[in-house]
């Protein structure tokens, strides 16, 4: 019996060693260690042994089983490893092949600029007000201190629909509409983005339709110095922390004093270049203190309240920011143009 066990051990170990797959290894496990396996069969003969031999043989059987099981486990691990390695090498792909295309579009560059400006002023506590693109003469001109026959109406040749109705020439009518709806409440803090229309022939720098963003802040004790402060905060957020602003006196019928606002040229940082015509400055905004007549007409007592307003052309800012040379690109929508604003 002892010989049988020794022989079984030798044979089994050799076969385990030679097993080339997990399947054949499993078959061997059943063959030797299974319920009907050879080792079990030997154990069944134990009863016939003399009592004094039983413990010795029993011990031997255990030794043989342990040895078999140990090798079995080792082989299993190593065969599993081999199988994984085999799979990995078969599954190799060319990672340099291009990925599958996912469609991606983007918003219009003017939308991007508008949203950026909106977000800056939202951060400063402003809300966004919108109004009609077609306006009455009253809101577009008269309520903004541009009575009929005012010479300044020359500056804005307009698309009229009838005597009293026209396409708005600026977003400023929103100021009036908002003030009227607020019925004398303060503060009024709005920005108004939108399309505006002027009778210009379309060329590289003119468009009969373009976009403006207008801002209005009315409260007690609003000063021109506050206008400077708010616009400086805006300019730095929009164009970079190191820019300066410069105000130049100007004229708008609905503000007084009025100012054109320049920012440090983004291209040359103020040293002078072709873009800023060697001045170091770029004009980006019109602004001023709200004219007392405008406040009066919209139901705000100019002795009690003051305010400032500003407006800027969105196309102009986009053109400066990206160096776009032709304003018509914004409206012809060549895909090669649109695609470039994908961030």
């Amino acid at each position: 019996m002892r010989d049988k066990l020794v022989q079984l051990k030798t044979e089994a170990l050799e076969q385990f060693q030679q097993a080339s797959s997990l399947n054949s290894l499993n078959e061997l496990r059943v063959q030797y260690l299974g319920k009907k396996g050879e080792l079990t069969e030997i154990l069944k003969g134990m009863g016939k042994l003399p009592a004094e031999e039983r413990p010795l043989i029993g011990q031997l059987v255990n030794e043989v089983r342990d040895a078999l099981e140990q090798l079995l486990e080792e082989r299993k691990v190593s065969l599993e490893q081999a199988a994984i390695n085999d799979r990995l090498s078969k599954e190799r792909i060319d990672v340099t092949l291009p990925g599958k295309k996912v469609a991606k579009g983007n918003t219009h560059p003017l939308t991007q600029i508008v949203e950026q400006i909106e977000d800056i002023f939202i951060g400063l506590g402003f809300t966004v007000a919108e109004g009609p693109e077609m306006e009455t003469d009253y809101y577009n001109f008269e309520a903004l201190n541009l009575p009929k026959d005012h010479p300044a109406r020359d500056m804005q040749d307009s698309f009229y629909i009838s005597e009293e109705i026209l396409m708005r020439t600026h977003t400023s009518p929103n100021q009036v509409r908002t003030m009227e709806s607020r019925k004398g409440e303060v503060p009024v803090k709005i920005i108004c983005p939108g399309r505006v229309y002027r009778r210009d022939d379309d060329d590289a720098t003119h468009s009969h339709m373009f976009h403006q963003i207008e801002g209005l802040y009315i409260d007690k004790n609003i000063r021109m110095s506050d206008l400077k402060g708010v616009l400086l905060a805006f300019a730095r957020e929009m164009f970079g922390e190191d820019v300066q602003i410069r105000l130049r006196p100007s004229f708008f019928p609905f503000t007084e004093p009025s100012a054109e606002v320049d920012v440090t040229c983004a291209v040359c940082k103020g040293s002078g270049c072709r873009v800023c015509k060697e001045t170091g400055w770029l004009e980006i905004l019109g602004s001023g203190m709200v004219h007392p007549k405008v406040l009066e007409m919209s139901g705000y007592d100019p002795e009690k309240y003051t305010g400032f307003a500003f407006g800027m052309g969105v196309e102009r800012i986009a053109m400066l920011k990206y160096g776009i040379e032709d304003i018509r690109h914004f409206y012809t929508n060549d895909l090669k143009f649109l695609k470039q604003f994908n961030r």
Partner: protein
Amino acid sequence: MKVSYNWLKQYVDLQGVSPEELAEKLTRSGVEVEGIENRNKGVSQIFIGYVAEKAKHPDADKLNVCQVDVGQAERLQIVCGAKNVDAGQKVVVSVVGAQLPGGLKIKKAKLRGVESQGMICSAKELGMNDKLLPKDQQEGILVLPEEAEVGQDAISYLGLDDAVLELGLTPNRSDCLSMIGVAYEVAAILDREVKLPDLSLEEEGASIEDKVHVQIEAPEHCSKYAARLITGIKLGPSPFWMQSCLMAAGVRPINNIVDITNYVMLEQGQPLHAFDYDRVENGKIIVRLAHPNETIQTLDDIERKLDPDMLLITDVSKPVGIAGVMGGANSEVNVDTVSILLESAQFSGVSIRKTAKKLGLRSEASSRFEKEVNPDAVMDALNRAAQLMITLGGGKVAKGVAVETTKEWKEPTISLRLERVNGYLGTSLEVGQVQEIMRRLRFAAAESEQGLQVTVPLRRQDITREVDLIEEVARLHGYDQIPISLPEGGTTRGGLTDYQQWQRTIRNTLTSAGLFEVFTYAFSDEKVMYDFAPFEAEHKGIPLTMPMSEERSHLRVHLLPHLLETASYNQNRQNNDLSIFEMGRVFLTEEAELTKLPKEKLCLGGLLTGTWLPQQWTNKPQSVDFYDMKGILEMLFATIGAEQVVYRSAENLKGMHPGRTTEILVQNIPVGYAGQIHPELQNKYDIQEAYVFYIDLEKLFPLVKRTNDYTPLPKYPASSRDLSIVVDQAISAGDIEQTIVEAAGAILEDVHLFDVFTGEKIGAGKKSLAFSLLYRNPEATLTDQEVNEAQERVLQELTAKYQAELRM
């Protein structure tokens, strides 16, 4: 306004201030200088010469050999080809070593064998704008007046040592439409004196009283009319210094009388007109409105039909001029004129503006009247011109002025409160500083309890209220000197409204799905604007009264024609694969003629054309189809909170393919449509097959749900079953799915169609649809029986409704 630097020096000291510095200072304090033109275009070493002799060139018919005295010891021999050169002329000579514009250098030369020591110059060769020269000086060499001094530097004589500042005046600063007005502005900026011209006048002639009468019959259009009579005029050229001033201002010299009126207009800002006194009947001037159907032949020899709201200058029988706009040919000063009736008047700006616009006759004069001239300048200009007509025209001025005044002007006194100044600007100025600024402006300012009482001269008609004075303080104190602060009020909450935020979500969703946002014009072409079905009853496009072109003549009523145009534009530029959308307004009205503002409806339009999936190593190219677009819309609706979206076949929508178009309903309300465009439109716009969608955002927004509902995660497992049926091809999958949902009952959690199949196996006119159904009971584990019963109900219902057969 063009301002000659040298001319300006007559009225204000510009010592130590270069034209460039002056321009910068003016711009920074509110009068923008748009450009500086150096009148010297690169000329050096030119002198005034005297042509002592002229002889024919021995070997060239067209050339002359001149002996020219330029004040040097010896005369210069110069070969000249100009026709008009002659002995006895004073001319401009560029000597050897001189430079002319364009880098031309004058060298000693031999012309056909004859030595030439310089060149006799034409105005053009000197870089002068020859269009401003009198006609006889435009051709050939420039011939100077007798009094030009031989040997003198011609650069200064011709006024080329000058710079012209081009002012871009805002409408409020019409006071700067005169040299004196600009001088006041410069004096205020530099804090220097203003030197006004001498206006003294010797009235040597007889009294004007019996000779000229002035009568204003339209007082609301003319507040003052003044006239002088100057006799014994000799018409001729004006002196060169005056011509030079006019040319610097861009005005062409004509003769001494016209030049004087123009010169004084430029100096004083007051337009003048000279009538030939002998052609004004009875010397009687009547200022009145035109009679119906009245006409006048103006100076430019054009017969003008007049409207009854146009202001005229007439004599007893006929109009002699359109007030402030243009004189009449019948009273024009000519070579036979000996007596001048000189007009200086103040007309209503509005009236002149309307007349000039209607007649298309805008001139230096009308543009000044339009902005209201300085009432104080009326008499000053009249006297100044009369004085110059004595000295330069050889005339005698009659005693007195014929004048009628219908309105007296008074200088306004405005109270300027110090607290208001500082409160408005954020400055901390003291009353003395403000008073100092008023002094520089030549505004009388007396101290008062709250600040200053300021009396504003009539030349500054833009200043009528306190805030106008505050602006003067701000710009002369310097905008740079205003501090930087932030508003002191409390903080407020900024943000977008739900609707605005929702619009951003739409943009972001569509761009994530591969679409590009476009912006198209709001003006449409009538030929295309009605190509697509509108949302509501047919709306008429609103026409512009003065469109710039037919293509942009109406307000758009629909977005899709513009997107088709965009597709066509892109296809012509080889961008064949295009996925675009626009969010924009359309303008809708039911009125035939607009009396109130139209409805501006915010709409969303989209267009997909060309290849949707490009050819890659993983797949063949796939053209965009209806279902690509529908998938995008489904994702959009899910993201923006549109629930209960139903797609219903729409066979009758204008512009759309009848078999490939769906109407879109949200909660049973139609909000838009989507589908393939009609092949006819494809041809009309010359584009490829295209799919479009059009959604009424204003209608959709109130129907959406913008928040998420949370349901606790399921505790019990779901059970999935497939169901394949065969039905007639005409039956729509949407109807079947609807029936499944209704028949299966509450335990149906989800259903989706996963296969559609047609073919011989199925039978002609039939199709097979395969659905996957997911059942779940949130309260308990489902039994097979429950699920089987549900499946059975579904099948029975489908069989009953659609004669569906279960596919084995």
